[in-house]
């Protein structure tokens, strides 16, 4: 929200300038700002000095595993983050995360530390170093930052799984008059970067006259490549939205990028609850940047300049959103490359926790005590007043 306001302010600030100048350079979205604060996860402000020096750089690849129950609700989250340091120098890294426990991941050349809401790394890198953290996170605060929502239901012999892209946001966008050749060139450049899975580089577009805010906010979502499998106890009779393969149903599609943001997989038969495994990867904008008519370039596009500008801004915002979800846990190097894949798996059945006993002896008990003390004080004061007036 804060970033959206900042973007709006930028547009507003640019507008008066238009009165003074015939044309102006307006910064297009990308590689930032991200439209929401999370991801990457945020919990605490890192201590002073917790940063990489200019001598050391970091790239991050992550695998986030979300355990889901039979209804598709997230019940556990585990993140494996590999930070690849390059360069020679000290590092003190704080990765904010609502961490329950953290251990060194495979091949880690150091041990992670843990504090409330933090994964810590400290040491010295000599040219190259791998820091791998295998963290168990609190599912409650983390679930909202996952890119996919699942909803599973069984109705008799019919099993339905709904997969919805959860990255959609409303964003302020600008409009104005730009030249078609520049717009088509920028679309081609953006497309090249998208297909190469490169992070966008900052670019400007030349706007003639007034720059204004679009009347309606843009609805932006990161394109998600989703592949999954439902393994049933028995071979299903049929499936829509997926392909039956023995006792499994497989599916693969993109949510977003000019395609629906939600899909449904329906299965008849199967003989019981399936074990689910869905892998999600934030991916490139392909359809949204494909030139009309299958052309190799946007140069020959017959679309009006306003439509081209709109397409350029929207697709770049989608790429920024996709890039945002590539960094589920923060990378200490703001310019470092990030990749994250998300895996949703059926979680092992858990026994119900005896929450009632814990709560009665815990905070509720404290509350009762506080109320009792407060009540006694008020009663004593009232008694004194009454007695003084008697």
């Amino acid at each position: 929200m804060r970033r959206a306001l900042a973007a709006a302010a930028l547009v507003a600030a640019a507008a008066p300038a238009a009165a003074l100048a015939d044309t102006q350079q307006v910064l297009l979205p990308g590689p930032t700002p991200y439209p929401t604060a999370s991801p990457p996860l945020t919990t605490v402000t890192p201590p002073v000095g917790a940063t990489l020096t200019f001598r050391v750089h970091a790239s991050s690849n992550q695998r986030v595993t979300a355990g889901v129950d039979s209804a598709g609700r997230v019940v556990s989250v585990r993140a494996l983050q590999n930070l690849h340091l390059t360069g020679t120098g000290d590092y003190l890294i704080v990765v904010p995360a609502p961490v329950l426990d953290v251990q060194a991941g495979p091949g880690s050349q150091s041990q992670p530390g843990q504090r409330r809401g933090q994964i810590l790394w400290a040491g010295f890198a000599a040219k190259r170093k791998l820091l791998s953290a295998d963290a168990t996170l609190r599912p409650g605060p983390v679930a909202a930052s996952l890119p996919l929502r699942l909803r599973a239901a069984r109705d008799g012999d019919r099993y339905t799984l709904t997969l919805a892209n959860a990255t959609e946001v409303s964003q302020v966008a600008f409009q104005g008059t730009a030249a078609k050749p520049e717009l088509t060139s920028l679309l081609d450049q953006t497309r090249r970067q998208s297909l190469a899975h490169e992070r966008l580089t900052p670019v400007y577009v030349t706007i003639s006259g007034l720059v204004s805010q679009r009347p309606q906010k843009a609805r932006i979502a990161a394109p998600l490549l989703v592949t999954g499998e439902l393994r049933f106890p028995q071979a299903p009779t049929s499936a829509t939205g997926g392909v039956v393969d023995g006792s499994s149903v497989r599916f693969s599609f993109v949510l977003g990028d000019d395609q629906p943001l939600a899909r449904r997989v329906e299965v008849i038969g199967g003989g019981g609850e399936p074990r689910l495994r869905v892998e999600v990867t934030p991916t490139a904008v392909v359809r949204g940047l494909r030139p009309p008519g299958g052309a190799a370039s946007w140069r020959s596009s017959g679309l009006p300049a306003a439509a081209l500008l709109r397409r350029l801004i929207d697709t770049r915002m989608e790429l920024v959103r996709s890039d945002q979800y590539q960094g589920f846990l923060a990378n200490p190097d703001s310019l470092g490359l990030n990749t994250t894949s998300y895996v949703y798996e059926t979680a092992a059945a858990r026994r119900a926790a005896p929450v009632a006993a814990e709560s009665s002896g815990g905070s509720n008990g404290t509350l009762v005590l506080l109320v009792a003390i407060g009540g006694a004080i008020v009663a004593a004061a009232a008694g004194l007043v009454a007695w003084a007036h008697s």
Partner: protein
Amino acid sequence: MRRLVILLAGISVLAAGCGGSSTSSSPKNLVIAVDVPVTGSPYIAQTIRQGVELATSNLNGGGGLRVGNQTYKLRVKLYDNHGSARQAVEDTRRALDAGAVTIVTDGTGVDATWQLAKQKGVSLAIAYDGGSGLVDAEKRPNVFRIAPTNHGIAFRYAEYLIPKKLKVGLLSDDSAYGREGAADIAKAFSENPGSVALKLTLPAGQADLSAQILRAKRSGATALLVWGQPPTIAAVLSAARSIGWQVPVYTPPTGADPFIRQQLADHPKWVDGLTFASGRPTAEVGTGPFTNFQSQYEAAYGPDPVGVKTSSGQKVVQPPEFGMYSYDFIHVLVAALTHAGSVDPAKVTSALNQVTAQGANGDQRGFNEHNHDGVVDDDIYFARFHDMTYQPVQDDPLSATLPPIVQTR
């Protein structure tokens, strides 16, 4: 009227009862116990004590420490454990009776004292002994350490020496310090047995090690890694050099102890080339922070003279490395007291896991729920003696980034 007076008195009593925000004007004392071998290892004891006192006097000089609504003056109580675990237990009991919020120690007797301290929620802070079993965040949640660990030193030595294709003679003395170090060194070199020429235990306190050194030489060793007390290291150097064997000698932090240079003052060349591993006294930010700390330390206590001179006649002084560690711990403790908002030892001990403070060398010092060692293994550096002073080596990536510290006056 009388009833009104009683009413007002009653209200004032109630208000006092609810007075959580009232401020106490007179500072209270907060005891920090220091238990060190004053009569066993006087240099270590002195530098640890002075590090604590310097930090506390700075804080007290600034008006004390504010915790919640109360101001505290930090008061240091010194105990002498004589290097004896039994005495350390006695000292710990006395420190707990005195209401200490923490006990700073060289490490003597921690195996026996940590449980006593834990019963009162009090933390133990080790500022010297790097023994691997002493600190365990899970099993000994109240034990913390700011000092280079044996494990880290052994690991760094393996990393440093194995690529040099040396045949290393692993020598250790039979003191507790030597035995603990030998175990860590053996583990660190276990993956590369071809790098080890021999393993040999030396009798601690024996001045003549000629026979053992001759045996090491005949084993084909091209380097000696000696884990022992300062007298053992001095004896190894003396035995090797007196037969003309210029084998490179590597040691843990005890190699920097002034005792060795004092013992070999008549043969300064015998000290040349001696390399020791320790926690780095300076950080990437340069010598500024450490020099500032050293200046304060020397202004308060004077320099720590080694008792030898360089070839040009300058007096050699010992940088207060271990004083830096105890000084740093007090700063982390203060951060924990502030974080906890309480002087309840248990709360402070818990808060030690959550805070970071800037150390005297510019590094960030702190602990966490998984690790109670404030000097990370990566911060172990190597320094080599020349002309009775030492400088970081240039053939190790970390050490090569460190500027030397002036050690003459």
